[in-house]
């Protein structure tokens, strides 16, 4: 099977308009006859549910938190990109498009990325109209900053809480529709299965997380907006609840899963302090503007930091990448840090950390200037580590952060299951092998506010409304399966907690499918994961029952899916015999240690089809065709 991304033909800049001309519309009077389920209320889900409700569809929106305002998008700090060119520094839609495609190491679709860059401008207008308090300058105009290596200032921000403010904007729009009666909210609800009728997505099976009740919702179409799966590594910068369950269960029902091995490791996170740690905290990348990264030249050093003389310090980024130095891109900086730690030169508890030293900058600019620039980050760092980063260097270490892989979708955001649409981080579409900073927020909102309302109409216009009902046997069967799985989990009554298994899985993944992978490490993972999974199904312990609020049962279900999904991720990493973006195969590097991409053989999206629990998934390829740009090597020397 050759996968068709269904991109419109014609000139790049006209593709989206052309598609919108071709898409069918639903008559306004008919819209209320259609019901759409939106799973997830982060940026992608909240914006989609609000807009679809506003258009007049009946919408039901689900999330596992107690309120849609708490979707993981709330945590995004840095900002959101747009090609407004307000600072007049040479930005354009084409430049944003090009930077994004190149940043993704040429592993994304041209047409999608161009559309994203175009819509970025509408997003800023929309959010400002909603009252999102984006930063302004003294003249009252919107303020911008630069971010993630871009040479133009195209990032819009709201202090260090951009994701929060954008989500509150979408949540407000959603709340307005709740009042208008077009959207019904189902918080504290987890989707546990996708239901197909005649091979089309027509509903979901859910667990009410308060009562434990399993039930089904039928509809005319389903939108999955359930976020990323970086928590497969156990420790990540994601919220604790972020998981792969909805996407994985849709995959089991026939939706292809694309590029699962593309994960982004962020270089500047607060290091792990011990086994008790439950998550990792991101420190803004901007710190590397003034901080210098180093480790002692010779292994573990018992001396106090200040007693390590200059000539015994290894400023390894400056040494290896004299051109970019401490500002080397995320994937490069992350790998370099891991290398020095693997050599036994890491600092801090467990030797998994490198110094980010501001003493030079403080000497040059004064403590006050540094406090003005990064004060809040220094405070946050002190809260977590009890160390004063003005007095001694910060310790940082890379951490899993964002997942570029996800369910495969075409240009209309439809998965390989008709009627199942996938938005935001849950789909694979726009970031290729690496995501540039400030572009995930952009994608989530473009998908939700502007793309899905047009594309879903085309599907609905060809569908007779209200054909599915939760009484149908397909729904009953799905409920039974969900109940059986819960019953099975509860009946094991083993010795280890779900968390124990998640932690073990995380270790396997980080060591073998992490920042640098090899055939050997991936094969090791492919041996260890099934062993751990087998043990899980014999030895997990879940207290309580299924007919009540049971957080351990929730956790165990998610861990079970991570255990399955991890294998798919390793398999994908194994088959991709090249290095690109966040996927670094040590067999494929240049003599100087840089990534070696292989466009002749791997210029495609790898989409995997589930073939049953005991068979290997089947690989399908969507060739990536570049008509408007030339593929180039990324170099940062």
């Amino acid at each position, binding site marked *: 099977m050759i996968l068709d991304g269904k991109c419109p033909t014609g000139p790049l800049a006209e593709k989206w308009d052309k598609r919108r001309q071709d898409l069918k519309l639903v008559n306004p009077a008919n819209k209320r006859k259609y019901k759409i389920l939106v799973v997830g209320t982060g940026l992608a889900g909240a914006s989609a549910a609000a807009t679809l409700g506003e258009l007049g569809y009946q919408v039901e929106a689900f999330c596992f*938190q107690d309120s849609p305002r708490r979707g993981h998008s709330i945590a995004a700090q840095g900002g959101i990109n747009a090609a407004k060119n307000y600072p007049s520094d040479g930005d354009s839609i084409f430049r944003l498009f090009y930077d994004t495609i190149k940043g993704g190491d040429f592993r994304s679709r041209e047409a999608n990325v161009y559309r994203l860059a175009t819509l970025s401008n509408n997003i800023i207008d929309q959010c400002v109209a*909603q009252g999102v308090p984006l930063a302004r300058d003294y003249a009252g105009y919107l303020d911008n900053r630069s971010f993630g290596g871009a040479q133009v200032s195209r990032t819009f921000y709201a202090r260090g809480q951009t994701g929060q*403010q954008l989500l509150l904007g979408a949540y407000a729009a959603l709340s307005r529709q709740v009042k208008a009666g077009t959207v019904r909210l189902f918080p504290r609800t987890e989707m546990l299965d996708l239901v197909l009728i005649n091979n089309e997505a027509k509903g979901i099976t859910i667990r009410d997380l308060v009562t434990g009740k399993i039930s089904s919702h039928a509809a005319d179409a389903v939108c999955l907006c359930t976020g990323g799966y970086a928590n497969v590594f156990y420790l990540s910068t994601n919220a604790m609840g972020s998981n792969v369950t909805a996407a994985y269960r849709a995959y089991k029902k026939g939706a292809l899963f694309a590029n699962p091995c593309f994960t982004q490791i962020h270089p500047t996170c607060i290091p792990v302090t011990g086994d008790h740690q439950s998550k990792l905290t991101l420190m803004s990348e901007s710190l590397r503007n003034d901080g210098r990264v180093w480790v002692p030249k010779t292994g573990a050093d018992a001396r106090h930091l200040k007693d390590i003389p200059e000539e015994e310090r290894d400023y390894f980024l400056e040494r290896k990448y004299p051109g970019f130095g401490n500002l080397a891109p995320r994937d490069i900086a992350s790998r370099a840090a891991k290398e020095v730690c693997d050599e036994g030169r890491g600092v801090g508890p467990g030797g998994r950390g490198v110094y980010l030293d501001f003493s030079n900058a403080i000497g040059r600019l004064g403590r006050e200037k540094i406090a003005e620039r990064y004060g809040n980050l220094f405070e946050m760092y002190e809260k977590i580590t009890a160390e004063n980063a003005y007095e001694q260097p910060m310790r940082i270490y890379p951490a899993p952060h964002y997942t570029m892989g996800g369910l495969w979708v075409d240009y209309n955001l439809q998965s390989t299951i008709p009627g199942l649409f996938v938005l935001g981080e849950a789909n694979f579409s726009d970031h290729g092998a690496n995501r540039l900073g400030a572009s995930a927020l952009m994608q989530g909102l473009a998908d939700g506010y502007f793309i899905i309302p047009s594309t879903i109409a085309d599907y609905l216009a060809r569908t007779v409304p209200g054909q599915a009902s939760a009484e149908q046997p397909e729904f009953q069967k799905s409920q039974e399966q969900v109940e059986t799985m819960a019953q099975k989990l509860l009946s094991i009554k083993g010795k280890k*907690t779900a968390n124990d298994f998640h932690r073990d899985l995380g270790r396997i993944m980080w060591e073998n499918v992490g920042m640098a992978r090899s055939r050997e490490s991936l094969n090791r993972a492919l041996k260890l994961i099934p062993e751990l999974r087998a043990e899980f199904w014999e030895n997990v312990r879940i207290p309580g029952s299924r007919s009540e609020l049971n957080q351990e049962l929730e956790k165990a279900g998610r861990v079970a899916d991570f255990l399955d999904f991890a294998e798919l991720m390793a398999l994908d990493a194994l088959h991709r015999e090249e290095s690109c973006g966040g996927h670094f195969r040590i067999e494929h590097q240049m003599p100087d240690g840089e990534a070696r991409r292989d466009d002749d053989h791997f210029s495609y999206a790898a989409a995997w089809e589930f073939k049953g629990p005991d068979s290997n998934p089947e690989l399908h390829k969507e060739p990536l065709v570049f008509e408007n740009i030339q593929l180039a090597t990324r170099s940062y020397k």
Partner: protein
Amino acid sequence: MDLTLFVWRQKGPADKGRLEELPAAGISPDMSFLEMLDLVNEELIRKGKEPIAFDHDCREGICGMCSQVINGIPHGPQKKTTVCQLHMRNFRDGDTIYIEPWKARAFPVIKDLIVDRSSLDRIIQSGGYVSVHTGGVPDANTVLISKEEADTAMDAAECIGCGACVAACPNGSAMLFTGAKVSHLAALPQGRIEAARRVCMMTAAMLKEGFGNCSNHYECEAVCPKGIKAKFIATLNREYIKAIPGELIKVRGKSGSD
């Protein structure tokens, strides 16, 4: 560190609930408060007992999900800090710690430390937004907003909706939360047009949900993890008083024709 915990255990809304004594041994000062509870929970599970149910998600102090009253203070003893960002080094070896859920009429307990805060969502649903459709809006720079106004809006908009203000207030008032939203939108030209209507709707919603009124205890400001200022309650009151005449005229004018 070794600690003694007294944790509120309540099976469900119908259960009366009681404090249960639980030991927490081998706690590292580097742990967050929630990681300490994770550890206690793992022990409980291994012993075949029910773990303590509590809400949390981002563990970064931003989602507003975590909610525990620690030694009588919502979010615990450290200023401007959520429970998930509170670290155990703020306690001493041998300490006894009391952990309870938010207590307020408008926040019924669901289980143990988990309460139902959907009343806050309903306050927003009553009118805490700008009524703008998606698409067809003007360029973002066509409406100028002074830096001061934008900053004031942002100061108010930082509220994470955790509900600690309600839990700390002797009247169980949600006026800091509502005041923050009202002030955020009233500070911006886009939000001004509906300001009068909004403040009336949101105030009515607060009353309907069973939240009390502010009588100037300032407990809300003291516990707010985001440092939301009580002056926004004053803004709320001012907006309300400003709104009343106009809204009354509208209501009177309407009653004839409706």
